[in-house]
């Protein structure tokens, strides 16, 4: 038996990222066989165009979760930044570029508020961001009295959400830049690598001389800033700025991160894993919409795509989480029966 070869193969297969890559491959294979024009260029563009905002949130959610925290406020932050962007352009008559930077600034300030409450006042992240989740959305609704929306933006701005640049949707290039930035930060800087150390053991990290407060703060500020960026892209895609932008996106982002193998308790996880988790969900959401030649319970699968992708994403996530404890139980039972 070629022991060394099998173990190395096993070691590769055991990596969470490889498993996710297989899941994506199976999805692509399945949808390109069963679906209509799934691999069509315009559809592949759609997959990413429609999910880039969630992808951005997932990227910045990764450092937050690595430190053992959580940020439930990013979706609401998108709503607030979208509304502010609309006000800057439509009421203050600023150029979309300036308004975009200001919106990212507002996101940064909002993230700073989270950071202050969590890192400085040592309040629990779940409770703090649950508070700002309501606060940011509430502000967005108050600024627009619940129903006002801003539209009729210049075409040059809408191109950010709707045009192709060098074969990819314009906003995907922004996403790739942010992804590269977060990857380098988390995996190739001393500063970023400490995210995991903090998540693994905050006290230990402090004794080891890491500036825990500064690190944790940066994770939340970054999340806020990128939520602002996601809001601008979202407005460019829809051509409308309204208080309900990004509703529920925080949970979709967390799903991608956890599916990507990051422990919800912090301490372990990778940016590549998050990216793969995000792609797996995005492909699933889009692919099901393409399966119109097959029926389930007398309806076209494409007619129930959103419902089914909810079910399947849920199953995938639960499966990914349940594997480790289930294997442990199986292993202990086996060893007991052998004794």
């Amino acid at each position, binding site marked *: 038996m070629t022991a060394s070869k099998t173990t190395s193969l*096993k*070691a590769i*297969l*055991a*990596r969470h990222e*490889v*498993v996710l890559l*297989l*899941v994506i491959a*199976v999805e692509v294979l*399945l949808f390109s066989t069963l679906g*209509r*024009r799934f691999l*069509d260029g*315009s*559809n592949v*563009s*759609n997959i990413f*165009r*429609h999910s880039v905002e969630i992808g951005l949130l997932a990227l910045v959610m990764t450092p937050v979760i690595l430190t053992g925290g959580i940020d439930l406020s990013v979706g609401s932050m998108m709503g607030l930044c979208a509304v502010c962007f609309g006000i800057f352009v439509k009421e203050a008559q600023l150029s979309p570029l300036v308004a975009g930077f200001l919106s990212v600034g507002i996101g940064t300030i909002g993230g700073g508020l989270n950071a202050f409450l969590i890192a400085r006042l040592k309040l629990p992240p779940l409770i703090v961001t649950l508070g700002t989740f309501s606060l940011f959305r509430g502000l967005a609704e108050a600024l627009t009295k619940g129903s006002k*929306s801003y*539209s*009729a933006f210049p075409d040059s701005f*809408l191109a950010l959400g*709707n045009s192709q640049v060098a074969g990819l949707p314009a906003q995907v290039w922004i996403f790739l830049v942010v992804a590269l930035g977060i990857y380098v930060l988390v995996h190739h800087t001393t500063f970023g690598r400490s995210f995991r150390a903090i998540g693994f053991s905050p006290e230990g990290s402090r004794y080891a001389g890491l500036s825990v407060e500064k690190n944790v703060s940066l994770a939340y500020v970054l999340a806020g800033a990128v939520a602002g960026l996601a809001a601008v892209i*979202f407005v460019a*895609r*829809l*051509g*409308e700025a*309204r208080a*309900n*932008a990004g*509703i*529920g*996106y925080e949970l979709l982002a967390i799903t991608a991160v956890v599916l990507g193998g990051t422990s919800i308790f912090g301490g372990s996880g990778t940016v590549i894993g998050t990216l793969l988790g995000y792609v797996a969900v995005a492909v699933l959401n*889009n692919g099901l*919409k*393409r399966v*119109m*030649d*097959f*029926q*389930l*319970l007398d309806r*076209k*699968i*494409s*007619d129930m795509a*959103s*419902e089914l992708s*909810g079910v*399947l994403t849920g*199953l*995938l996530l639960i*499966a*990914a989480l349940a*594997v480790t404890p*289930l*294997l442990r139980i199986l292993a202990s039972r086996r060893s007991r029966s052998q004794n």
Partner: protein
Amino acid sequence: MKRSRFLCSLAVLCAVPFLGACKKSESGAGGGKKLTIAFLPKSKGNQYFVTCERGARAAANELGAELLFDGPTNSDPAKQNEIVENWISLGVDVIAAACENKEGLSTALRKAQAAGIKVVTYDADAQPDARTFFVNQATEKGIGDALLDNAAKLVGDEGEFAIITANLTAANQNAWIAAIKARQAEKYPKMKLVDIKPCDDLKDKAQQETTNLLGAHPNLKAVISVCSPGVPGAAEAVKQAGKTGTVKVVGLGLPSENKAYVKEGVTQLVILWKVEDLGYLAIKAGAALADGSLKPGASEFNAGKLGTLKVEGDNILLGTPFAFTKENIDQFDF
């Protein structure tokens, strides 16, 4: 480590029942020149749109067209756009849409038009340049006339009546009230509008306001509600005041919400368009636009089983609203 293998087999196990339950649909993979029509509701779970879809399906079957149906299942404002963009890249022939976010969805519908897809809207319009026709379920005058004509018939063309509205600034409701006032001045000189009360779209508030109205105007003959929660609210107040039958209740609302009161005889009738016909007409109009038999500027449209309908500007009119009464309300489930 067996973790990976386990995860893989788990994924396969999940997929097996899913695939097993699937069956190839009869329609085939778009072979030939079959028309593909996509039908977008404001939201998917809403009984109103489920009923619309039933009519849409009937029309698609009649036309031998393939119908795609998808809509938002949550409140994410981007969902309608994503569905439309998905249909664009799929290359459908016609899109019939009810817009939740008028401005936002117009962006996607314009893209669809640019890609050569025919676009009609129904129930809730987009911006005019984002579609060719709007299938209009009822004009302001149509609703106002239907409400007052029916109320007048019930009270013998004379006596005091009051209106329950959503709130005093609601544009739709105010337009309908203006239509009612105009109709009254023109056709029913012996009827008198004594009061207009807002109910904030709440049944409880409507009930309370109606109770006050009944006290303040002992000669009141009829209550007309121009918002749907106001109809059952007014009915409950009339019933509790023991004035069932003496004070007539009519209004704009869903038959299902009013069934109990209509059958008891508290509410005499509710007015609404036939929702199923709205879906049917949207598909018919979309298909006619695609085959060239309906063109911008047309003044009428032959809509199959609905007969010939009027076209005003770029609005195709579904016609006069339908009155749901004790006799027919059981036939409707929306």
